[in-house]
């Protein structure tokens, strides 16, 4: 058997696929943007050949599908060439979304862990609450998001908190499910051992249940942080496009600024990736510290 190389088996396939996607993107951009150029030429009454159309499709003001370099240029421009506090800066909008995400994620994590502890330690809670926790997720909360925002605005709560609440609602679920599983993961034999030590419920919790739930917790945290970013972005839609990545998306779609939509989308993707990676690093660090193999 050949030894799997990091470069050959991990980096190269992904790189090839990404390169292929970029090529497809360019081709699609040419074909999707070409009709507009043809129309303009026809209106002007000048014949136009394909080789003339081709470069034009790359630099349209409002393309149907912006070419990758246009998006990258826009991201570069709005990230590094604008003051961070300016409303034209993508960093400013990303920060607003990020702060709502993090607050919601924090509340959601605490709430989720507390609920899980309750469910594990109380049978009535387990039987009566768990079905509703699951049912609560089949409700498309993102659909309720605008109402929560508008209603909370009506009673004078605005800004960060309503968005954070939506993130909370979305992120608590994976944590509850994961933590219930994790807190129950110690085997009977281990629980019996604690019993023979005459350990109290809290001792069993801190010395056995809590440590053994860590892998489950971090797996859930990864899902939760990604989903709470989605919550924050959707929460920004109904505020009338004030600020944040969601507002950039909405404003872009109102005014047909496709390049702006795509750049906001890429920024959101980068943000999500960074957050998930940070949680992943914390995962590895904690498990290593605990002497477990991640």
């Amino acid at each position: 058997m050949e030894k799997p190389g990091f470069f050959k088996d991990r980096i190269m396939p992904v790189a090839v696929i990404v390169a292929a996607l970029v090529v497809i993107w360019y081709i699609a951009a040419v074909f999707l943007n070409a009709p507009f150029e043809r129309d303009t030429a026809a209106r002007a009454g000048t014949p136009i050949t394909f080789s003339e159309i081709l470069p034009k499709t790359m630099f349209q003001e409002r393309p149907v599908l912006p070419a990758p370099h246009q998006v990258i240029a826009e991201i570069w421009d709005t990230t590094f060439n604008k003051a961070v506090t300016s409303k034209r800066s993508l960093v400013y909008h990303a920060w607003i979304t990020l702060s709502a995400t993090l607050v919601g994620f924090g509340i959601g994590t605490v709430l989720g862990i507390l609920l899980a502890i309750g469910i594990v330690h109380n049978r009535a809670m387990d039987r009566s609450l768990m079905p509703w926790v699951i049912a609560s997720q089949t409700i498309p909360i993102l659909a309720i998001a605008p109402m929560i925002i508008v209603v909370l605005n009506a009673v004078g709560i605005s800004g960060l908190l309503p968005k954070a609440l939506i993130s909370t609602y979305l992120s608590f679920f994976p944590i509850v499910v994961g933590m219930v599983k994790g807190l129950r993961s110690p085997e009977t034999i281990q629980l019996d051992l604690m019993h023979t030590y005459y350990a109290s419920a809290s001792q069993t919790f801190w010395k056995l249940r809590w440590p053994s739930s860590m892998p489950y917790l971090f797996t859930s945290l990864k899902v939760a942080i990604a989903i709470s970013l989605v919550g924050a972005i959707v929460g920004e839609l109904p505020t009338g496009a004030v600020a944040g990545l969601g507002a950039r998306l909405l404003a872009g779609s109102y005014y047909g600024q496709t390049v702006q939509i795509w750049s906001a989308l890429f920024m959101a993707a980068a943000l999500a990736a960074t957050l998930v990676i940070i949680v992943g690093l914390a995962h590895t660090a904690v498990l290593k510290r605990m002497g477990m193999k991640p």
Partner: protein
Amino acid sequence: MNTSLVFGAIAFWLVAWAINEWLVRQTFRDRLANRAVRLVVPLLFGISILVLWEGLVRGLNVPFVLLPPPSAIGVRLVNSVPTLWADFQQTFLKAVITGYALGCGLGFIVAIAIDRSPFLQKGLLPLGNFVSALPVIGVAPIMVMWFGFDWQSKVAVVVIMTFFPMLVNTVSGLAATSSMEKDLMRTYAATWFQTLVKLRLPAAWPFIFNALKINSTLALIGAIVAEFFGTPIVGMGFRISTEVGRMNVDMVWAEIAVAAVAGSAFYGAVALIERAVTFWHPSMRSARAA
């Protein structure tokens, strides 16, 4: 403020909780009774929450805009069935079901197609995992721009949202068979197709159903949120955003109730099919024994 209503509601909730506490400690001889208890406990909890909601909202005079009492929502629900049905048709029957079927089908087919190419798998799998963590919902404005305001654009959003979870889960499901089992199929001189149908697909069902369940909620969310970016004057997302603007909160809650029931029913249907198809899986066996 009406104190008696508040206390009445709280008392009802406490009594219901006490009954639940008592019920979960009982074990009945009869299996049917045990099953009934499993059903009654969450039901009682739900009802007590509704009563508590009603009592607190009415007793504390919470403004109607902030949180209407459940009874008002129920009345509104019954009175506006035609509207709700039209919205349901537009959003659920047209956009969600079509998009769900297309997205899951495509994800499945692509997973099978790249099954024979380890190179493509290694390339697509990390990307698929990455995309699953992204706020895919953000493509909604683009799709609305491309495919117009009607349900076709919502289908496109749902397809994109459901495609990647399905792809990733199917690929890892197909990889779930052990080499021992594959070797056995080889000794039978089974072709790749026979191995796929008789061994690897059945082994992959739990993973595939996992994706189907995740996607059932994702699809509904995708369709509703996509409607915020532009829609004809019908649809659940449209109704929610316009009625919020007109402060008709009871209508919004009625729509939410419909969405919740539809979402739960969809999820439940997938879970039932899963139980029928993967009856052999340990998680199902233990559920049946209990």
